[in-house]
């Protein structure tokens, strides 16, 4: 991983290279031991490039190698690891380097303006929508349906920004209170500034290897036990936004593959996508780690704390570490890797976790991507 930063000196290509090199170094591997490279990167509008996958190819280690760029909007960072998984599982590759990069600061004067082009050009863009709209609309629907309060949601920001204090890549680690969150300015009611992740520059990368190769390379591989992804209809104004069905479907795809039948008992650590505070709770419900509408209560009870029964987002998440879109999802996979190996340092959760789930989300509140990893080799 690189640092996650508001604005980086490095070019997109250099960010990709720094992350790719760090991943190779950690595995004590050279690029020529990599059979193929996968890039995940979200909208082209940010890096200021058309065909940015092509431009980034050499930074991702793709020179004269099988290389491609995949994306599912904000869900890309976790999806790219699933892509790397099936490329290796296909038997066509022994190893894969998965790199996710985003340099949002290229887009001036403010990266958020680029988001207008994600909306439907006929039915939505003429209304001049801000990205905040859709999150605020969804959060309001979620709160209304389950009678959730803003205080309950603000706790996510408090927990994640605190957790991020222990992360060397973090952009916004902080010790804050619920009061601070609610006192921060209203961006788009019910969303306050401290409930929103920042725009960031950064990259993250992982090395994947087939089972027999992995066992040769390390005595402590972290196994990909399940992958899942799911895309819902583009007609988001025709859906009830209170619950992410697409996350549930993606989660069960991954859980089935991992042989997980009771997620709440069999998952020891979770890294759900938290670009906005309420999304972590929303996603925990979609991931079957909390009953519908109950995630806020479990959070208040301390269940999701780093030393709680189910540590959630020990990395600090997008709210604390930062949100270079695709790279943020891969950051969550990196966190599980370190946590399951007991190498997360100040962020280490107690109790030797054996299985974790990472999840990302994106598009028009539409896509769920899920990867389950664990310390034991899967049987599929």
């Amino acid at each position, binding site marked *: 991983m690189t640092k996650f930063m508001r604005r980086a000196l490095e*070019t997109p290509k250099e960010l990709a290279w720094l992350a790719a090199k760090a991943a190779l170094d950690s595995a004590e591997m050279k690029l020529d031991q990599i059979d193929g490279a996968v890039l995940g990167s*979200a*909208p*082209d*509008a940010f890096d*200021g*490039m*058309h*065909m*940015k*996958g*092509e*431009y*980034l*190819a*050499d930074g991702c280690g793709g*020179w*004269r*190698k*099988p*290389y*491609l*760029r*995949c*994306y*599912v*909007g904000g869900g890309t960072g976790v*999806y790219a690891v699933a*892509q790397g*998984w*099936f490329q290796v*599982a*296909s*038997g*066509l590759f022994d190893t894969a380097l998965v790199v996710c990069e985003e340099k949002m600061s290229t887009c001036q004067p403010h990266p958020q303006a680029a*988001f207008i*082009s*994600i909306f*439907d*050009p006929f039915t939505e863009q003429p209304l001049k929508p801000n990205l905040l709209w859709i999150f605020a609309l969804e959060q309001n629907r979620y709160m209304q349906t389950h009678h959730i309060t803003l205080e309950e949601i603000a706790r996510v920001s408090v927990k994640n920004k605190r957790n991020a204090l222990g992360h060397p890549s973090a952009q916004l680690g902080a010790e804050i209170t619920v009061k601070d969150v609610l006192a921060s300015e209203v961006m788009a009611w019910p969303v306050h500034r401290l409930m929103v992740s920042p725009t960031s520059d950064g990259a993250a990368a992982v090395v994947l290897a087939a089972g027999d190769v992995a066992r040769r390379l390390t005595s402590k591989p972290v196994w990909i036990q399940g*992958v*899942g*992804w*799911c*895309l*819902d*209809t*583009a*007609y988001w104004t025709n859906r009830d936004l209170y619950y992410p*069905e*697409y996350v549930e*479907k*993606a989660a069960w*795809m991954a859980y089935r593959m991992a042989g997980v039948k009771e997620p709440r008992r069999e998952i020891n650590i979770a890294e759900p996508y938290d670009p906005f505070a309420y999304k972590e709770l929303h996603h925990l419900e979609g991931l079957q780690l909390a009953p519908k509408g109950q995630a806020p209560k479990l959070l208040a009870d301390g269940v999701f704390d780093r030393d709680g029964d189910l540590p959630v987002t020990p990395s600090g998440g997008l709210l604390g570490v930062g949100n270079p879109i695709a790279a943020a999802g891969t950051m969550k996979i990196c966190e599980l890797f370190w946590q399951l190996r007991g190498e997360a340092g100040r962020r280490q959760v107690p109790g030797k976790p054996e299985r974790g789930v990472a999840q990302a989300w*994106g*598009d*028009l509140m*539409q*896509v769920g991507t899920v990867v389950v990893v664990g310390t034991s080799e899967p049987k*599929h």
Partner: protein
Amino acid sequence: MNERVAIIGVGVMAARPSSEHLSFKEMMFEAAQKAYADAGIDAHEVESFVTCAEDLTEGISIFDEYTPDQLGAVQKPMHTLTQDGLYGIADAVMQLRSGLVGLVVVEAHSKHSNLENPNSILNYALDPVYNRPLDFNPHVIAGLEMNGFLHATGITQAQCAQVVAKNRTHALKNIAAAYPMNLRAEDVQSSPYLCYPLRDAEMAKSADGCVVVVLAGASRAQPSKSRPVWIRGVGFTNDSPTLESRDWIDAQYIRAAAAMAYGQAGIKDPVAEIDLFEVDDAYAYKELQHLVALGIYPQAVAAGRAVENGESGAAGKMPVNVSGGSLGIGHTLEASGLYRLAEIVCQLRGEAGPRQLPRAKVGLAQSWRGVPTTSGAVVILGR
């Protein structure tokens, strides 16, 4: 694990210079319906979907948002590749081989007519620091490469013009082609230079279109249920993205992609073992450069002679681009590779009508993503 993967259905929209009567969603819906009917499947049976598209040629960021509904992919696994459609085929093959899914759909389309200033978009693909400030027409990259390629190989401008004449004449027999024309090489050579030595008429014109392909593992692809065309090998590779450090003579990306695909297919002698080729001809010289990189000619100069003496024509001993290629069909952005693949499927099934080749058992489709990229894929199909 699905060791063997087949194409069991293809839906092709005729390529046309424009397509005002259909939104991109409606175009995809029509192509999908054709493909599912061809495969004899119901959309609900499909387990995973892949779309090949770039945000900036759609004019919509995070384009994958708008892909599921018209393909029947709502609440299904679906993702996008910013690659040519043949990468989508490779992606589907890998998903199937991993055992994750048993039935996959790949889609790519072009609404190029909706781009008001395509050269500006292409310019936006150049390195922002090293190249873009020079403010040159991005097609100059093809001119630079063609000049180097002709100089190094001894292939002539006249032979490149012959590629255009051959492919556009082939397109006369293809109702899906947007630019059929009974052309002679002399006609092409009288066209003005776009950027020396590349002439206007040697660049494929853009078209709108859409192709949807259905792929299945062996258990679903029995001849009793469909007319499977088997995927024998897939390969894809990038060379250097920088203009400053790439190989300007040899298409290294295709050399490596072909080695990967030949390896899987067990092909040692492509000339003897492959009956027909559909290769990228976004610029006429590219057909020859790509054939050389595919290892068809021991010496590059022979690629030029082959087009001159008709060997690579529909009636020749090694037909290349009998569909009309991108010069004849039109260049359809990321769908270009899938039009070539669709032609091979059609030929291998014996359904090519007036274009049908007498011997079509094994075919090769190849793609390149156009300037300024060095990104290419190879798919080998067999009956």
